[in-house]
Protein backbone atom coordinates (compact mmCIF):
# COMPACT_ATOMS: atom_id res chain seq x y z
CA UNK A 1 0.00 0.00 0.00
CA UNK A 2 1.40 3.35 -1.00
CA UNK A 3 1.87 6.18 1.45
CA UNK A 4 -0.92 8.45 0.11
CA UNK A 5 -3.41 5.60 0.23
CA UNK A 6 -2.33 4.74 3.74
CA UNK A 7 -2.72 8.36 4.77
CA UNK A 8 -6.14 8.50 3.20
CA UNK A 9 -7.19 5.37 5.01
CA UNK A 10 -5.95 6.72 8.32
CA UNK A 11 -7.82 9.96 7.68
CA UNK A 12 -11.05 8.10 6.96
CA UNK A 13 -10.64 5.96 10.05
CA UNK A 14 -9.56 8.58 12.54
CA UNK A 15 -10.77 11.86 11.02
CA UNK A 16 -14.24 12.05 12.48
CA UNK A 17 -13.39 10.65 15.93
CA UNK A 18 -10.60 13.19 16.27
CA UNK A 19 -12.89 16.02 15.15
CA UNK A 20 -15.60 14.96 17.59
CA UNK A 21 -13.23 14.65 20.53
CA UNK A 22 -11.70 18.02 19.62
CA UNK A 23 -15.15 19.63 19.48
CA UNK A 24 -16.04 18.13 22.85
CA UNK A 25 -12.71 19.32 24.28
CA UNK A 26 -13.09 22.90 22.98
CA UNK A 27 -16.80 23.24 23.66
CA UNK A 28 -16.48 22.04 27.24
CA UNK A 29 -13.16 23.79 27.96
CA UNK A 30 -14.51 26.71 29.94
CA UNK A 31 -17.62 24.93 31.11
CA UNK A 32 -18.80 25.81 34.57
CA UNK A 33 -22.02 23.79 34.29
CA UNK A 34 -21.92 21.12 36.97
CA UNK A 35 -23.33 18.48 34.60
CA UNK A 36 -20.92 19.05 31.72
CA UNK A 37 -17.43 19.27 33.19
CA UNK A 38 -14.56 20.04 30.80
CA UNK A 39 -13.23 16.98 29.03
CA UNK A 40 -9.81 17.84 30.40
CA UNK A 41 -11.11 17.48 33.96
CA UNK A 42 -12.76 14.19 33.14
CA UNK A 43 -9.58 12.75 31.66
CA UNK A 44 -7.54 14.00 34.58
CA UNK A 45 -9.82 12.30 37.10
CA UNK A 46 -9.81 9.05 35.13
CA UNK A 47 -6.58 7.50 36.50
CA UNK A 48 -7.39 8.65 40.02
CA UNK A 49 -10.87 7.14 39.87
CA UNK A 50 -10.15 3.82 38.25
CA UNK A 51 -7.23 2.71 40.33
CA UNK A 52 -6.06 -0.90 40.26
CA UNK A 53 -7.82 -1.43 43.56
CA UNK A 54 -11.12 -0.31 42.13
CA UNK A 55 -10.70 -2.33 38.96
CA UNK A 56 -10.17 -5.49 41.01
CA UNK A 57 -13.02 -4.65 43.41
CA UNK A 58 -15.64 -3.35 40.99
CA UNK A 59 -14.85 -3.96 37.34
CA UNK A 60 -13.51 -7.51 37.46
CA UNK A 61 -16.46 -8.97 39.40
CA UNK A 62 -18.89 -7.29 37.02
CA UNK A 63 -17.14 -8.74 33.99
CA UNK A 64 -16.86 -12.15 35.67
CA UNK A 65 -20.60 -12.20 36.30
CA UNK A 66 -21.24 -11.19 32.72
CA UNK A 67 -18.92 -13.95 31.48
CA UNK A 68 -20.52 -16.66 33.61
CA UNK A 69 -24.09 -15.61 32.84
CA UNK A 70 -23.41 -15.23 29.14
CA UNK A 71 -21.56 -18.54 28.98
CA UNK A 72 -24.46 -20.33 30.66
CA UNK A 73 -26.89 -18.73 28.22
CA UNK A 74 -24.83 -19.84 25.21
CA UNK A 75 -24.53 -23.44 26.40
CA UNK A 76 -28.17 -23.82 27.43
CA UNK A 77 -29.48 -21.82 24.48
CA UNK A 78 -27.60 -23.80 21.84
CA UNK A 79 -28.38 -27.16 23.45
CA UNK A 80 -32.08 -26.49 23.96
CA UNK A 81 -32.39 -24.66 20.65
CA UNK A 82 -30.88 -27.58 18.72
CA UNK A 83 -33.20 -30.03 20.43
CA UNK A 84 -36.27 -27.90 19.73
CA UNK A 85 -35.18 -27.19 16.17
CA UNK A 86 -34.69 -30.87 15.38
CA UNK A 87 -38.05 -31.94 16.76
CA UNK A 88 -40.95 -30.25 14.95
CA UNK A 89 -43.51 -31.42 17.44
CA UNK A 90 -41.58 -30.08 20.40
CA UNK A 91 -41.20 -26.81 18.53
CA UNK A 92 -44.92 -26.47 17.91
CA UNK A 93 -45.53 -27.25 21.56
CA UNK A 94 -43.10 -24.69 22.91
CA UNK A 95 -43.32 -21.91 20.33
CA UNK A 96 -46.02 -19.67 21.91
CA UNK A 97 -44.43 -20.04 25.35
CA UNK A 98 -41.00 -19.12 23.99
CA UNK A 99 -42.47 -16.16 22.09
CA UNK A 100 -43.90 -14.88 25.34
CA UNK A 101 -40.68 -15.25 27.31
CA UNK A 102 -38.71 -13.61 24.57
CA UNK A 103 -41.09 -10.65 24.55
CA UNK A 104 -40.74 -10.01 28.29
CA UNK A 105 -38.20 -7.19 28.58
CA UNK A 106 -35.34 -8.77 30.58
CA UNK A 107 -35.04 -5.99 33.20
CA UNK A 108 -38.44 -6.86 34.68
CA UNK A 109 -36.95 -10.21 35.63
CA UNK A 110 -34.87 -8.43 38.23
CA UNK A 111 -37.66 -7.95 40.80
CA UNK A 112 -38.80 -11.55 40.35
CA UNK A 113 -35.33 -13.04 40.65
CA UNK A 114 -34.82 -10.81 43.66
CA UNK A 115 -37.71 -12.68 45.30
CA UNK A 116 -36.07 -16.06 44.78
CA UNK A 117 -32.37 -15.55 45.10
CA UNK A 118 -32.09 -12.25 46.91
CA UNK A 119 -30.08 -9.57 45.28
CA UNK A 120 -27.02 -9.03 47.42
CA UNK A 121 -24.93 -11.93 46.17
CA UNK A 122 -23.69 -13.08 42.80
CA UNK A 123 -26.37 -15.66 42.18
CA UNK A 124 -29.27 -13.33 41.44
CA UNK A 125 -27.18 -11.22 39.11
CA UNK A 126 -25.83 -14.19 37.18
CA UNK A 127 -29.31 -15.64 36.80
CA UNK A 128 -30.57 -12.28 35.53
CA UNK A 129 -27.84 -12.06 32.90
CA UNK A 130 -28.21 -15.70 31.85
CA UNK A 131 -32.00 -15.50 31.55
CA UNK A 132 -31.86 -12.27 29.57
CA UNK A 133 -29.25 -13.61 27.14
CA UNK A 134 -30.89 -17.00 26.76
CA UNK A 135 -33.87 -16.14 24.53
CA UNK A 136 -32.15 -14.51 21.54
CA UNK A 137 -29.64 -17.40 21.41
CA UNK A 138 -32.27 -20.08 21.87
CA UNK A 139 -34.70 -18.74 19.28
CA UNK A 140 -32.01 -18.03 16.71
CA UNK A 141 -30.60 -21.53 17.18
CA UNK A 142 -34.06 -22.97 16.58
CA UNK A 143 -34.40 -20.93 13.40
CA UNK A 144 -30.89 -21.84 12.28
CA UNK A 145 -31.44 -25.57 12.78
CA UNK A 146 -34.83 -25.37 11.12
CA UNK A 147 -33.56 -23.44 8.11
CA UNK A 148 -30.85 -25.98 7.40
CA UNK A 149 -30.48 -26.82 3.72
CA UNK A 150 -32.60 -30.01 3.26
CA UNK A 151 -29.99 -31.39 0.85
CA UNK A 152 -27.41 -31.37 3.64
CA UNK A 153 -29.65 -33.40 5.92
CA UNK A 154 -30.47 -35.88 3.16
CA UNK A 155 -26.82 -36.28 2.21
CA UNK A 156 -25.85 -36.92 5.81
CA UNK A 157 -28.61 -39.50 6.04
CA UNK A 158 -27.59 -41.31 2.87
CA UNK A 159 -23.99 -41.48 4.08
CA UNK A 160 -25.31 -43.10 7.26
CA UNK A 161 -23.66 -40.56 9.52
CA UNK A 162 -24.33 -41.38 13.14
CA UNK A 163 -26.66 -38.92 14.89
CA UNK A 164 -23.77 -37.54 16.91
CA UNK A 165 -21.60 -36.86 13.86
CA UNK A 166 -24.58 -35.40 12.04
CA UNK A 167 -25.04 -33.01 14.94
CA UNK A 168 -21.39 -31.99 15.14
CA UNK A 169 -20.55 -31.84 11.44
CA UNK A 170 -23.83 -30.90 9.78
CA UNK A 171 -26.40 -29.36 12.10
CA UNK A 172 -24.30 -27.14 14.33
CA UNK A 173 -22.06 -25.69 11.59
CA UNK A 174 -25.11 -25.12 9.39
CA UNK A 175 -26.89 -23.27 12.13
CA UNK A 176 -23.84 -21.34 13.29
CA UNK A 177 -24.49 -18.12 11.32
CA UNK A 178 -27.85 -17.75 13.04
CA UNK A 179 -26.41 -18.82 16.39
CA UNK A 180 -23.83 -16.06 16.10
CA UNK A 181 -26.50 -13.54 15.16
CA UNK A 182 -28.39 -14.47 18.32
CA UNK A 183 -25.24 -14.45 20.42
CA UNK A 184 -24.44 -10.94 19.23
CA UNK A 185 -27.86 -9.65 20.26
CA UNK A 186 -27.47 -11.46 23.55
CA UNK A 187 -24.11 -9.83 24.23
CA UNK A 188 -25.51 -6.30 24.15
CA UNK A 189 -28.44 -7.39 26.32
CA UNK A 190 -25.95 -8.99 28.68
CA UNK A 191 -23.99 -5.75 29.10
CA UNK A 192 -27.22 -3.87 29.81
CA UNK A 193 -28.23 -6.45 32.41
CA UNK A 194 -24.76 -6.46 33.96
CA UNK A 195 -25.25 -2.77 34.73
CA UNK A 196 -28.90 -2.93 35.71
CA UNK A 197 -28.43 -5.91 38.03
CA UNK A 198 -26.01 -3.81 40.09
CA UNK A 199 -28.39 -0.92 40.55
CA UNK A 200 -30.56 -2.79 43.02
CA UNK A 201 -29.61 -3.03 46.63
CA UNK A 202 -26.34 -1.89 48.18
CA UNK A 203 -23.73 -3.39 45.93
CA UNK A 204 -20.32 -3.20 44.45
CA UNK A 205 -19.62 -3.37 40.78
CA UNK A 206 -19.16 -1.16 37.79
CA UNK A 207 -22.80 -0.13 37.46
CA UNK A 208 -23.16 0.42 41.19
CA UNK A 209 -20.02 2.56 41.24
CA UNK A 210 -21.26 4.83 38.46
CA UNK A 211 -24.60 5.37 40.16
CA UNK A 212 -22.90 6.08 43.47
CA UNK A 213 -20.84 8.78 41.76
CA UNK A 214 -24.01 10.26 40.34
CA UNK A 215 -25.85 10.20 43.68
CA UNK A 216 -22.96 11.86 45.45
CA UNK A 217 -22.70 14.43 42.64
CA UNK A 218 -19.14 13.39 41.78
CA UNK A 219 -19.86 14.37 38.21
CA UNK A 220 -16.42 14.08 36.56
CA UNK A 221 -16.04 10.64 38.14
CA UNK A 222 -19.47 9.70 36.81
CA UNK A 223 -18.36 10.72 33.34
CA UNK A 224 -15.24 8.56 33.61
CA UNK A 225 -17.54 5.68 34.50
CA UNK A 226 -19.71 6.31 31.45
CA UNK A 227 -16.62 6.41 29.25
CA UNK A 228 -15.24 3.22 30.79
CA UNK A 229 -18.53 1.43 30.28
CA UNK A 230 -18.58 2.60 26.68
CA UNK A 231 -15.05 1.32 26.16
CA UNK A 232 -15.98 -2.06 27.63
CA UNK A 233 -18.92 -2.26 25.24
CA UNK A 234 -16.68 -1.46 22.30
CA UNK A 235 -13.98 -3.96 23.33
CA UNK A 236 -16.52 -6.73 23.87
CA UNK A 237 -18.08 -6.06 20.46
CA UNK A 238 -14.63 -6.14 18.83
CA UNK A 239 -13.76 -9.41 20.60
CA UNK A 240 -17.03 -10.91 19.47
CA UNK A 241 -16.40 -9.83 15.92
CA UNK A 242 -12.92 -11.38 15.97
CA UNK A 243 -14.28 -14.72 17.19
CA UNK A 244 -17.12 -14.58 14.69
CA UNK A 245 -14.83 -13.79 11.76
CA UNK A 246 -12.63 -16.71 12.69
CA UNK A 247 -15.36 -19.25 13.20
CA UNK A 248 -17.57 -18.12 10.34
CA UNK A 249 -14.81 -17.51 7.80
CA UNK A 250 -16.32 -20.16 5.49
CA UNK A 251 -19.71 -18.46 5.63
CA UNK A 252 -18.39 -14.98 4.94
CA UNK A 253 -16.47 -16.32 1.97
CA UNK A 254 -19.52 -18.14 0.67
CA UNK A 255 -21.65 -15.02 0.85
CA UNK A 256 -19.01 -13.00 -0.95
CA UNK A 257 -18.96 -15.52 -3.77
CA UNK A 258 -22.75 -15.50 -3.95
CA UNK A 259 -22.76 -11.75 -4.30
CA UNK A 260 -20.03 -11.91 -6.92
CA UNK A 261 -17.50 -9.88 -5.00
Amino acid sequence: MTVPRLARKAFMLLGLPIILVAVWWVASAGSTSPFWPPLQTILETFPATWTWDRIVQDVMPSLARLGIGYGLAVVIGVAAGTAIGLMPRLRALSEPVLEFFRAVPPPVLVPIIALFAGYTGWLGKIITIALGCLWPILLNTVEGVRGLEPVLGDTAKSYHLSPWRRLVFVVLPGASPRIFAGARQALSIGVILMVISELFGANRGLGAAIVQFQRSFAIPQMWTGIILLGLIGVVLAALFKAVENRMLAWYVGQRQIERGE
Partner: protein
Amino acid sequence: MSSSPPTLAPTRRAAGPRPRRRGRRTDAWLGVAGVFIVLAGSELLSRTGIVNPDFLPPVTEMYASLFGLLGEADFWESLWLTVRGWAIGLAAAMALGIVVGFVIGSIPFLRAFTNSTIEFLRPIPSVALIPLVVLLFGTQPQSAFLLVLYAAFWQVLVQVLYGVADVDPVARDTARSYRFGPLRVARSVIYPTALPYIMTAFRLAAAVALILEITAELVIGVPGLGRDIGIAQSSGNVPETYALVIVVGLIGVGVNMFARLVERKALWWHPSVRSETP
Protein backbone atom coordinates in the same frame (compact mmCIF):
# COMPACT_ATOMS: atom_id res chain seq x y z
CA MET B 1 -20.75 -6.22 5.75
CA SER B 2 -21.08 -9.77 6.94
CA SER B 3 -22.95 -8.83 10.06
CA SER B 4 -26.52 -8.91 8.82
CA PRO B 5 -27.54 -12.54 8.85
CA PRO B 6 -30.75 -11.83 10.81
CA THR B 7 -32.05 -9.68 7.97
CA LEU B 8 -34.23 -11.09 5.29
CA ALA B 9 -33.42 -14.68 6.05
CA PRO B 10 -36.57 -16.00 4.35
CA THR B 11 -35.26 -15.10 0.87
CA ARG B 12 -32.60 -17.74 1.23
CA ARG B 13 -35.06 -20.50 1.91
CA ALA B 14 -35.32 -23.12 -0.78
CA ALA B 15 -38.19 -22.43 -3.15
CA GLY B 16 -39.41 -26.00 -3.43
CA PRO B 17 -42.30 -27.32 -1.34
CA ARG B 18 -41.29 -28.45 2.12
CA PRO B 19 -41.72 -32.16 2.49
CA ARG B 20 -44.40 -33.53 4.77
CA ARG B 21 -45.56 -30.30 6.34
CA ARG B 22 -48.06 -31.11 9.04
CA GLY B 23 -51.22 -29.06 9.24
CA ARG B 24 -51.09 -25.60 10.74
CA ARG B 25 -54.01 -26.51 12.94
CA THR B 26 -52.14 -29.33 14.63
CA ASP B 27 -49.31 -26.90 15.33
CA ALA B 28 -51.71 -24.35 16.77
CA TRP B 29 -53.28 -26.92 19.06
CA LEU B 30 -49.87 -28.11 20.20
CA GLY B 31 -49.00 -24.48 20.96
CA VAL B 32 -52.13 -24.06 23.06
CA ALA B 33 -51.27 -27.31 24.83
CA GLY B 34 -47.77 -25.98 25.54
CA VAL B 35 -49.12 -22.81 27.12
CA PHE B 36 -51.54 -24.88 29.18
CA ILE B 37 -48.79 -27.22 30.36
CA VAL B 38 -46.66 -24.31 31.56
CA LEU B 39 -49.58 -22.64 33.35
CA ALA B 40 -50.74 -25.87 34.96
CA GLY B 41 -47.18 -26.85 35.86
CA SER B 42 -46.43 -23.64 37.69
CA GLU B 43 -49.81 -23.74 39.42
CA LEU B 44 -48.99 -27.24 40.61
CA LEU B 45 -45.47 -26.32 41.75
CA SER B 46 -46.91 -23.52 43.82
CA ARG B 47 -49.95 -25.35 45.23
CA THR B 48 -47.94 -28.37 46.31
CA GLY B 49 -45.33 -26.16 47.91
CA ILE B 50 -42.41 -27.52 45.86
CA VAL B 51 -41.66 -23.89 45.10
CA ASN B 52 -42.35 -21.53 47.97
CA PRO B 53 -45.75 -19.93 47.20
CA ASP B 54 -44.44 -16.68 48.68
CA PHE B 55 -42.09 -16.48 45.72
CA LEU B 56 -44.21 -18.09 43.04
CA PRO B 57 -47.90 -17.62 43.77
CA PRO B 58 -50.37 -19.89 41.97
CA VAL B 59 -51.11 -18.74 38.43
CA THR B 60 -54.76 -18.36 39.30
CA GLU B 61 -53.83 -15.79 41.95
CA MET B 62 -51.69 -13.91 39.45
CA TYR B 63 -54.61 -13.71 37.06
CA ALA B 64 -57.02 -12.75 39.83
CA SER B 65 -54.66 -9.91 40.64
CA LEU B 66 -54.44 -9.05 36.96
CA PHE B 67 -58.20 -8.80 36.64
CA GLY B 68 -58.26 -6.67 39.76
CA LEU B 69 -55.80 -4.33 38.08
CA LEU B 70 -57.96 -4.05 35.00
CA GLY B 71 -60.54 -2.22 37.10
CA GLU B 72 -58.09 0.37 38.41
CA ALA B 73 -57.64 3.71 36.69
CA ASP B 74 -54.00 3.91 37.83
CA PHE B 75 -53.16 0.76 35.93
CA TRP B 76 -54.58 2.13 32.69
CA GLU B 77 -52.77 5.40 33.26
CA SER B 78 -49.45 3.54 33.66
CA LEU B 79 -50.14 1.40 30.64
CA TRP B 80 -50.86 4.48 28.56
CA LEU B 81 -47.69 6.22 29.77
CA THR B 82 -45.56 3.19 28.93
CA VAL B 83 -47.04 2.72 25.47
CA ARG B 84 -46.86 6.45 24.75
CA GLY B 85 -43.20 6.66 25.81
CA TRP B 86 -42.39 3.64 23.69
CA ALA B 87 -44.20 4.97 20.63
CA ILE B 88 -42.74 8.48 20.76
CA GLY B 89 -39.19 7.25 21.30
CA LEU B 90 -39.50 4.65 18.56
CA ALA B 91 -41.00 7.13 16.09
CA ALA B 92 -38.25 9.65 16.74
CA ALA B 93 -35.55 6.99 16.38
CA MET B 94 -37.07 5.73 13.13
CA ALA B 95 -37.36 9.22 11.63
CA LEU B 96 -33.86 10.24 12.64
CA GLY B 97 -32.29 6.91 11.68
CA ILE B 98 -33.89 6.84 8.23
CA VAL B 99 -32.98 10.43 7.36
CA VAL B 100 -29.41 10.16 8.64
CA GLY B 101 -29.03 6.71 7.06
CA PHE B 102 -30.22 7.90 3.65
CA VAL B 103 -27.91 10.93 3.70
CA ILE B 104 -24.83 9.05 4.93
CA GLY B 105 -25.54 5.96 2.87
CA SER B 106 -25.96 7.70 -0.47
CA ILE B 107 -22.74 9.74 -0.23
CA PRO B 108 -19.77 7.36 -0.38
CA PHE B 109 -17.38 9.82 1.24
CA LEU B 110 -19.63 10.35 4.25
CA ARG B 111 -20.16 6.63 4.61
CA ALA B 112 -16.43 5.89 4.71
CA PHE B 113 -15.77 8.90 6.91
CA THR B 114 -18.39 8.05 9.57
CA ASN B 115 -17.91 4.27 9.54
CA SER B 116 -15.38 4.07 12.39
CA THR B 117 -17.38 6.47 14.54
CA ILE B 118 -20.62 4.54 14.07
CA GLU B 119 -18.89 1.24 14.81
CA PHE B 120 -17.51 2.81 17.97
CA LEU B 121 -20.67 4.52 19.25
CA ARG B 122 -23.06 1.68 18.46
CA PRO B 123 -21.93 -0.87 21.05
CA ILE B 124 -21.89 1.70 23.87
CA PRO B 125 -24.58 0.36 26.15
CA SER B 126 -27.44 2.82 26.45
CA VAL B 127 -27.71 2.14 30.17
CA ALA B 128 -24.39 3.94 30.54
CA LEU B 129 -26.43 7.10 29.99
CA ILE B 130 -28.75 6.42 32.92
CA PRO B 131 -26.81 8.53 35.45
CA LEU B 132 -26.61 11.38 32.98
CA VAL B 133 -30.31 11.48 32.12
CA VAL B 134 -31.15 11.22 35.81
CA LEU B 135 -29.15 14.38 36.43
CA LEU B 136 -30.68 16.16 33.48
CA PHE B 137 -34.33 15.19 33.72
CA GLY B 138 -34.84 13.21 36.94
CA THR B 139 -37.92 11.02 36.71
CA GLN B 140 -39.55 12.97 33.91
CA PRO B 141 -40.51 11.07 30.74
CA GLN B 142 -37.66 12.80 28.88
CA SER B 143 -35.21 10.48 30.68
CA ALA B 144 -36.87 7.43 29.16
CA PHE B 145 -37.18 9.18 25.82
CA LEU B 146 -33.43 9.81 25.57
CA LEU B 147 -32.54 6.22 26.50
CA VAL B 148 -35.06 4.79 24.04
CA LEU B 149 -33.91 7.14 21.30
CA TYR B 150 -30.24 6.32 21.80
CA ALA B 151 -30.76 2.56 21.87
CA ALA B 152 -33.19 2.37 18.95
CA PHE B 153 -31.44 4.93 16.74
CA TRP B 154 -28.37 2.74 16.15
CA GLN B 155 -30.49 -0.27 15.25
CA VAL B 156 -32.30 1.77 12.62
CA LEU B 157 -29.24 3.58 11.30
CA VAL B 158 -27.20 0.43 10.76
CA GLN B 159 -30.01 -1.40 8.99
CA VAL B 160 -30.76 1.60 6.75
CA LEU B 161 -27.08 1.83 5.87
CA TYR B 162 -27.08 -1.85 4.85
CA GLY B 163 -30.24 -1.23 2.84
CA VAL B 164 -28.91 1.78 0.97
CA ALA B 165 -25.67 -0.07 0.24
CA ASP B 166 -27.70 -2.94 -1.21
CA VAL B 167 -29.04 -0.86 -4.14
CA ASP B 168 -28.53 -2.57 -7.49
CA PRO B 169 -25.73 -0.72 -9.33
CA VAL B 170 -27.58 -1.11 -12.65
CA ALA B 171 -30.69 0.57 -11.25
CA ARG B 172 -28.56 3.36 -9.85
CA ASP B 173 -26.76 3.88 -13.16
CA THR B 174 -30.04 3.77 -15.06
CA ALA B 175 -31.47 6.45 -12.81
CA ARG B 176 -28.38 8.52 -13.36
CA SER B 177 -28.51 8.22 -17.14
CA TYR B 178 -32.14 9.31 -17.01
CA ARG B 179 -30.93 12.29 -14.99
CA PHE B 180 -33.11 11.64 -11.97
CA GLY B 181 -32.66 14.30 -9.31
CA PRO B 182 -31.41 13.24 -5.87
CA LEU B 183 -34.93 13.26 -4.40
CA ARG B 184 -36.31 11.19 -7.24
CA VAL B 185 -33.43 8.70 -6.86
CA ALA B 186 -34.11 8.50 -3.14
CA ARG B 187 -37.81 7.88 -3.74
CA SER B 188 -37.84 5.45 -6.63
CA VAL B 189 -34.45 3.70 -6.46
CA ILE B 190 -33.11 3.71 -2.93
CA TYR B 191 -36.39 3.58 -1.02
CA PRO B 192 -37.76 0.32 -2.51
CA THR B 193 -34.41 -1.42 -1.95
CA ALA B 194 -34.03 -0.13 1.56
CA LEU B 195 -37.64 -0.75 2.62
CA PRO B 196 -37.16 -4.39 3.69
CA TYR B 197 -34.19 -3.31 5.77
CA ILE B 198 -36.20 -0.45 7.24
CA MET B 199 -38.87 -2.95 8.23
CA THR B 200 -36.26 -5.18 9.87
CA ALA B 201 -35.01 -2.09 11.65
CA PHE B 202 -38.54 -1.36 12.81
CA ARG B 203 -38.93 -4.83 14.23
CA LEU B 204 -35.61 -4.77 16.07
CA ALA B 205 -36.00 -1.19 17.24
CA ALA B 206 -39.54 -1.76 18.50
CA ALA B 207 -38.33 -4.53 20.81
CA VAL B 208 -35.28 -2.57 22.00
CA ALA B 209 -37.39 0.55 22.59
CA LEU B 210 -39.73 -1.40 24.85
CA ILE B 211 -36.82 -2.84 26.83
CA LEU B 212 -35.35 0.62 27.41
CA GLU B 213 -38.71 2.22 28.23
CA ILE B 214 -39.39 -0.42 30.89
CA THR B 215 -35.80 -0.19 32.16
CA ALA B 216 -36.08 3.57 32.56
CA GLU B 217 -39.33 3.17 34.47
CA LEU B 218 -38.00 0.41 36.69
CA VAL B 219 -34.57 1.83 37.40
CA ILE B 220 -35.07 5.58 37.30
CA GLY B 221 -38.69 5.74 38.36
CA VAL B 222 -40.23 7.29 35.27
CA PRO B 223 -44.00 6.81 35.65
CA GLY B 224 -45.26 3.70 33.89
CA LEU B 225 -45.68 -0.05 34.28
CA GLY B 226 -42.00 -0.60 35.06
CA ARG B 227 -42.19 1.67 38.09
CA ASP B 228 -45.36 -0.10 39.22
CA ILE B 229 -43.49 -3.42 39.10
CA GLY B 230 -40.76 -2.01 41.31
CA ILE B 231 -43.30 -0.62 43.76
CA ALA B 232 -45.32 -3.84 43.86
CA GLN B 233 -42.19 -5.89 44.49
CA SER B 234 -40.76 -3.68 47.23
CA SER B 235 -44.13 -3.52 49.00
CA GLY B 236 -44.28 -7.33 49.00
CA ASN B 237 -47.29 -7.67 46.73
CA VAL B 238 -46.01 -10.72 44.89
CA PRO B 239 -49.10 -11.67 42.82
CA GLU B 240 -49.35 -8.11 41.53
CA THR B 241 -45.64 -8.13 40.60
CA TYR B 242 -46.22 -11.22 38.50
CA ALA B 243 -49.43 -9.81 37.06
CA LEU B 244 -47.62 -6.68 35.89
CA VAL B 245 -44.76 -8.73 34.45
CA ILE B 246 -47.34 -10.75 32.51
CA VAL B 247 -48.88 -7.51 31.22
CA VAL B 248 -45.48 -6.23 30.11
CA GLY B 249 -44.76 -9.55 28.41
CA LEU B 250 -48.09 -9.38 26.59
CA ILE B 251 -47.25 -5.85 25.47
CA GLY B 252 -43.97 -7.26 24.15
CA VAL B 253 -45.83 -9.99 22.25
CA GLY B 254 -48.19 -7.34 20.91
CA VAL B 255 -45.28 -5.17 19.81
CA ASN B 256 -43.70 -8.11 17.96
CA MET B 257 -46.96 -8.99 16.26
CA PHE B 258 -47.60 -5.37 15.32
CA ALA B 259 -44.11 -5.08 13.83
CA ARG B 260 -44.61 -8.23 11.77
CA LEU B 261 -48.00 -6.99 10.57
CA VAL B 262 -46.53 -3.66 9.47
CA GLU B 263 -43.73 -5.56 7.72
CA ARG B 264 -46.22 -7.71 5.86
CA LYS B 265 -48.42 -4.78 4.82
CA ALA B 266 -45.53 -2.62 3.69
CA LEU B 267 -43.72 -5.40 1.84
CA TRP B 268 -46.61 -7.25 0.24
CA TRP B 269 -44.83 -6.93 -3.11
CA HIS B 270 -41.47 -8.19 -1.86
CA PRO B 271 -40.35 -11.77 -2.65
CA SER B 272 -39.44 -12.48 0.97
CA VAL B 273 -43.06 -11.96 2.02
CA ARG B 274 -44.71 -13.36 -1.09
CA SER B 275 -42.89 -16.67 -0.88
CA GLU B 276 -44.07 -17.19 2.69
CA THR B 277 -47.77 -17.23 1.85
CA PRO B 278 -48.67 -20.65 0.45
